[in-house]
Structure formats: structure tokens, C-alpha cells
């Protein structure tokens, strides 16, 4: 079932360097070694024709520069999906032809050597230069296992390098080995392929290597006895999820207050210190207003990233996938998709990247299409602002606070919609190919190294920070420009009946006649059925770049009307013209429609970019944008109609 690709898709991202391929099962420590060898110098690309990401990095050692390709984790060279065919094609000498790697580095987990030798046997069958890196030898020893590395090397006929992840000497040993690739030993005959003969070969090799099977990890067994118990396991899982949400709202609050206070102080400095009118407005409204509104939520999103990284690093995520698999199967997905969707609660970008763990391409696409519907942290500033316009902080719904209930309802709507969307995409994905069987290795609980956690958090934050510093900044500045242009002279204002010395009236006039207003009015036909006016329209349009910009944009509009109390400005804002002229802009039906709109709308350029990167094509980004925009409009309209009918 090997697909032939012209050039085997192995055209290097960085040609002219000797290339080595890292092969091994998932959880064998490949990523840690790859990061150790390449640092942050790795490049990401895509294998042609499939949604599999490709990692290449350069490692430097005593004057040599070598290219390392981190192949996706695999248990076998026998492909059962188009994705896997690509990878096995790179290793199969008849497919790769002239693009073969110089050498294969097989990463074997010392604690599951009996299984890993099966993959090694397949690699050796290709008769290419192979060297073995043995990982987790420390854990092997901890669990009373042992292996004689020299004897193993002799039994295999290959070079074997024991490595303890995270330690520099292991990385150096691997680099040394790569430089000495010409002197790698190779066995006279390759291991057998027939399953009985292979089993015999594996057992014989392990016996000759003095392999002592590690004892069942009693620590992991005991912890799992609690965390995976039908009753206590479920309760603890719910508690962890609850803690997740608590972080979102409660834990980060003191830090948020600090950030808010800081930006308030900066804003004060700006308005006092900068005397040039437009510059002062630019700094406080565009820069500080835009950034401040977003960075207030930074402590909370970082905490979420850390929590996810810890759950991932310790191995708890696999347990979460185990517990949730049955539920996910209802939507046609699997347990690991839950992990991706959970990560999307922090930010859809790392959530979409987390779909790499799903072996099925159809599952990956379905989960990627669903991820933007999970309530990401960017929606929070918008929800907070709108819910305040909807219900007062004191209002109660039975025993629960009304504001909290609405928030919970929005989260629930997002989650249910995500699962439904995933189900739909899985169904329409076509019935081509066999259904991939579900299997998942359950790793031991491990204490993640600080470095690994930090790297994971950094990977997740990179995209988010880039979004904040570039997209949000630029959009906020552009919106500020659109709201303050064209410039009006005093004479123009007098002619329109506005007193130029009255700051409030003047700025209101500027905004009402700005470029932004023209745009907002131009799209009125589209949004009028939802109850939006031009001000909401430009807010929505500007937030296409990033959701948080909505708050900044409406903040500027409100501040123009009431610089001292923009909040009450929003409350009392009325519609200028059209069917709802004279009515309160943010009435119940409109706010609900707006909230529902934000639940569904795809308003994040960064997410679209990541979808493109992960799937290797713009097609899915466009599909996501398309279907979510339509869904947003339809659901907002339905929500508005329903509210009007009930009120």
C-alpha cells in the first residue's frame, strides 16, 4: 500500500547537508532528543499531499553541520493510512531512491524494548545504516530492570547509544555517532519478518543482552488505581476540569488586577505627559487601550498553558483521553481529540497543534474544524463586556449569579457546537479508506523536566504573543486611524452645528463621520437583521483579525462619547438611523445576538494561519472561515428572533 510520490516528498527544507532521520514510537523521547540536538533551530513544513507536519533541524557538532529530520512517531513501517505511507516512503529505499537519509537513528524506549525491537527489525530489513539510541535507561533501572548495552549491541550487530533525556552528554554521544556514520556496524543478516521467527529473534536478543524486564511500575499502577477508578477517577477528572475553569476566572484575578492597574497608570501618564492631542489619543486609545485590554488576560492564558503542559508532561493527558474516549466516540472522534479540544479552551492555536497526536487524518481535520468553537480566552474580554451590558452583577438566576450562569451557558454552547461540528465533518469526510483502529499507549507517570514544560509553554505562547504584538497592535492602530479620519477643521464642525470647543461633541462628530462609520454603514444590510448598527459592525469587522480588538474598538467609540465613563456610554448608546432608530443599541436581544455571534464566528487570523500550516493547504482555513461565518450569522439571527419572541 505504498504510494509513490515523485521525489518521495523528501525534498529537504534545508538541502546540501547530510540528513539523518529520527525514527521511533511516540512517547519514546524523540521530541526531547530532537529538541536537544536542534535547540530552537527547527523548521516546520508539511509533507506533500497529507496533513502531517514535518520537522527538520540542524545540529552543530565540532565543525560539522548535520540535518535531522524528526519523523512522526510510529510503531511500524507497515502503513495503514496515506499519512503513514509518506513516512515509510522516506525510509523505504525503493521509494526514497536518491533522497534516502544518510543514516537512520532508531529511538527505542528501554522499558518497552520487547515491543520496540519489532520496529527496529523492520528498519534493519531496509539494509540502511541504522544506529540505536536507547532512552529511559534511568527509568529502567528505577524499576529494577536492566540491560547490558554492549551485549545488546553485539546481539543486534548495531551501534547502541544509551541516553538519558535532558542530559547533555547523551546529545553529544548521538552527535558523535552521526559524524562517525561511515563506521556504523551492520549485521550480516537482517532479522526475520515472519511473526514467530521475529518473536524468537526478539526474545533471543533480549536474553543475550541480559534484559531484565522492568517491574510493573507500581507507582503508576497505584496512582492509576485512583485516577482511573470508575468512581474516584471520574470525580478527580471532574475536579481537574473544574480547577481548569477556576484558573480562568478566579486564580488569575489578582494578577489581572495588577496588569489592569499598570495599564491604568500608564494611561494616566500618557494623557498627562503627552500634550499633542492626536498623539495622546493615539497612545492611550490605540496603543494602551488595545494592548491593555488583551494583556490583562495574559496571566490567565499563561497559567492555562502551564497547566496543560504539566498535564501533558506528567502523563495525565493520556488518562484524560482514556476516560473521555467513549464520549468522544459518540462524535465519531477518539479520546486524544478531547485533549486537543481542552487545550483550545486556552487558545485554539495550541489546540489545533495538539491534533498531531491523532493518527487518523479524518479525525485531525474534524477536530481542527471544531477547535475554534471551543470558548478560547480571547472571547472572554468580549463576553465580560457584553454580559455586563446584559445583566447587572447582582442579578441572580435562582441560587446562581446571573452573570456566571450566562458565562457558563456560553461555554456549554461552544462545547456542544464543537462536538456537533466534529461529528458533521467526520461524517462528510467521506467513507474512503478503512476506519483506523483506536489504540493508545499509556505511559508511566513521569516528572517532567522544567525545561520540557518551559519549552511546551513557550511553543503554545509563541503564536499567541505574536498575535498580540502584531495582529492586534496593527488592527487597533488601523481602527484608531479609521475612527479619527478624515480630519475635520473647526470651520467644518461649526458648519455642521457642532461646537469645536466641546470635546465630547467634537469627538462624537469625528467618529460619526469617520471612515470607519462609512464602512460600518456600508455593511449595514448584512447585519441589520441581527440588530447591529454601524458601531457594532465596525467592531465585528475589526475583530475578524482578533476577537479582543472588539473591546478596544468599542472602547474607543464609547470613550469618544463619554471619556470618563465609557461603560455607561455603551449602556445608553442609541441607534442613529434605520429600523431601530432611537432605541437603546445594546438591548437584550441585540446583546444576546452579539454573544451568540461571537460563539460561532471565526475571528482570528492567527487561527486561520495555523490551520493552513497544520493541514498544508489554505483549503481548510477557507472552509473553516466560510462555515463558521455562515453559522454565526444564522445562529445570531435565530437567537435574536427567539429572544424577541420570548420577551
Amino acid at each position, binding site marked *: 500500500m505504498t504510494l509513490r510520490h515523485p521525489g518521495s516528498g523528501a525534498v529537504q527544507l534545508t538541502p546540501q547537508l547530510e540528513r539523518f532521520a529520527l525514527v521511533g514510537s511516540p512517547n519514546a523521547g524523540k521530541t526531547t532528543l530532537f529538541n536537544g540536538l536542534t535547540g530552537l533551530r527547527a523548521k516546520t513544513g508539511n509533507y506533500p499531499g497529507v496533513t502531517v507536519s514535518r520537522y527538520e533541524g540542524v545540529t552543530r557538532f565540532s565543525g560539522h553541520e548535520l540535518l535531522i529530520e524528526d519523523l512522526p512517531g510510529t510503531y511500524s513501517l507497515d502503513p495503514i493510512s496515506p499519512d503513514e505511507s509518506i513516512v515509510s516512503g522516506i525510509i*523505504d529505499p525503493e521509494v526514497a531512491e536518491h533522497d534516502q537519509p544518510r543514516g537512520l537513528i532508531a529511538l527505542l524506549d528501554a522499558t518497552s524494548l520487547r515491543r520496540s525491537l519489532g520496529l527496529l527489525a523492520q528498519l534493519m530489513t531496509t539494509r540502511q545504516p541504522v544506529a540505536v539510541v536507547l532512552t529511559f535507561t534511568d527509568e529502567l533501572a528505577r524499576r529494577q530492570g536492566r540491560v547490558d548495552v554492549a551485549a545488546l549491541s553485539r546481539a543486534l550487530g548495531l551501534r547502541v547509544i544509551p541516553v538519558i533525556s535532558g542530559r547533555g552528554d547523551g546529545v553529544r554521544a548521538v552527535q558523535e555517532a552521526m559524524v562517525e556514520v561511515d563506521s556504523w556496524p551492520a549485521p550480516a543478516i537482517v532479522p526475520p519478518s515472519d511473526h514467530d521467527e521475529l518473536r524468537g529473534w526478539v526474545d533471543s536478543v533480549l536474553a543475550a543482552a541480559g534484559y531484565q524486564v522492568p517491574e510493573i511500575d507500581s507507582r503508576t499502577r497505584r496512582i492509576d488505581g485512583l485516577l482511573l*477508578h470508575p468512581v474516584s477517577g471520574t470525580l478527580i477528572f471532574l475536579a481537574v476540569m473544574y480547577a481548569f475553569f477556576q484558573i480562568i476566572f478566579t486564580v488569575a484575578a489578582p494578577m489581572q488586577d495588577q496588569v489592569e492597574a499598570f495599564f491604568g497608570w500608564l494611561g494616566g501618564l500618557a494623557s498627562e505627559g503627552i500634550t499633542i492631542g492626536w498623539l495622546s489619543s493615539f497612545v492611550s486609545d490605540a496603543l494602551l487601550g488595545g494592548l491593555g485590554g488583551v494583556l490583562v488576560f495574559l496571566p490567565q492564558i499563561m497559567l492555562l498553558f502551564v497547566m496543560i503542559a504539566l498535564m501533558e508532561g506528567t502523563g495525565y493527558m493520556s488518562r484524560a483521553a482514556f476516560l473521555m474516549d*467513549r464520549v468522544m466516540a459518540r462524535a465519531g472522534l477518539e479520546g486524544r481529540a478531547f485533549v486537543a479540544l481542552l487545550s483550545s479552551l486556552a487558545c485554539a492555536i495550541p489546540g489545533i497543534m495538539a491534533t498531531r497526536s491523532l493518527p487518523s487524518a479524518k479525525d485531525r481535520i474534524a477536530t481542527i474544524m471544531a477547535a475554534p468553537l471551543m470558548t478560547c480566552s480571547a472571547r472572554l474580554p468580549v463576553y465580560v463586556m457584553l454580559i455586563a451590558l446584559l445583566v447587572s452583577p447582582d442579578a441572580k438566576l435562582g441560587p446562581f449569579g446571573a452573570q456566571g450562569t450566562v458565562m457558563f451557558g456560553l461555554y456549554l454552547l461552544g462545547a456542544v457546537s464543537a462536538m456537533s461540528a466534529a461529528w458533521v465533518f467526520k461524517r462528510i469526510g467521506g467513507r474512503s479508506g*478503512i476506519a483506523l*483502529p483506536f489504540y493508545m499507549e499509556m505511559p508511566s507517570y513521569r516528572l517532567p523536566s522544567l525545561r520540557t514544560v518551559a519549552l511546551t509553554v513557550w511553543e503554545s505562547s509563541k503564536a499567541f504573543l505574536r498575535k498580540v504584538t502584531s495582529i492586534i497592535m496593527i488592527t487597533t492602530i488601523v481602527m484608531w486611524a479609521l475612527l479619527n479620519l478624515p480630519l475635520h477643521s473647526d470651520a467644518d464642525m461649526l458648519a455642521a452645528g457642532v461646537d469645536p470647543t466641546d470635546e465630547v461633541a467634537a469627538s462624537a462628530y469625528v467618529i460619526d463621520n469617520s471612515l470607519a462609520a462609512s464602512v460600518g454603514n456600508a455593511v449595514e444590510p448584512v447585519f441589520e437583521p441581527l440588530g447591529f448598527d454601524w458601531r457594532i459592525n465596525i467592531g465585528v469587522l475589526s475583530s475578524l483579525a482578533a476577537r479582543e480588538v472588539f473591546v478596544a474598538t468599542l472602547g474607543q467609540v464609547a470613550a469618544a462619547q463619554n471619556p470618563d465613563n465609557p461603560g455607561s456610554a455603551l449602556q445608553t448608546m442609541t441607534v442613529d438611523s434605520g429600523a431601530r432608530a432611537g432605541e437603546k443599541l445594546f438591548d437584550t436581544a441585540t446583546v444576546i445576538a452579539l454573544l451568540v455571534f461571537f460563539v460561532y464566528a471565526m475571528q482570528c487570523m492567527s487561527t486561520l494561519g495555523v490551520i493552513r500550516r497544520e493541514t498544508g493547504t489554505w483549503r481548510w482555513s477557507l472552509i473553516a472561515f466560510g462555515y463558521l461565518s455562515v453559522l454565526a450569522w444564522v445562529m445570531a439571527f435565530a437567537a435574536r428572533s427567539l429572544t424577541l419572541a420570548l420577551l
Partner: protein
Amino acid sequence: MTMVSEVLSARCINCRITRPTGTQVPLSTLKAGVKAVLVGFDDSLDAPTTRRLMDLGFLPGRCVELVRKAPMRDPLMFRVCDYELVLRGAQAGKILVQTEA
């Protein structure tokens, strides 16, 4: 087909069982903690899945044991080849084992 892929595809020919005998039961019926030996795969299981299960360590002759079930009875966690692997009941039902007792 290349030499390598041909060799890999030919692997599961003689471990597929059409009519299991009385002692050959599906893995999904195993009780937790009971050790069993794998004897083969039900004929109705497609070849690619069979080969993937073999690559995961389910080789005829190997010991298998059910560690635990998920709270909703699916999926199942097994110990095979010195490590823990999760499978759904649907696949586990096609793997045939013989208990040591």
C-alpha cells in the same frame, strides 16, 4: 510494491483464525488480572488492522492481561509486551486468546 512493503504485508497470513475452538476466546471477555496467551486473530478482522496489532506487540505466543476498563466499560487497558496499551472493545473482541488455567 517494494520489497520492504511486500515483506511487511505478507506477515499475518498464518495467524488468522476462521473457527475459534472452545478454548480460544476473545480478548474482550478476559477478566482483569487473568493472564492469557495470544493465539491469533479472528478472520473477520481486516489485514491492515491485524498487522498493526502485531506491530503493537500482539504476537501469537505473547502474554496478555487486562489491567482495567474505563468507567464507561470502554476502552480497555491491556498489558502486553511489557507495556500498557489501550484498545476499544471492538478490536479486542477480534483478538483470540487462551487462558493459562
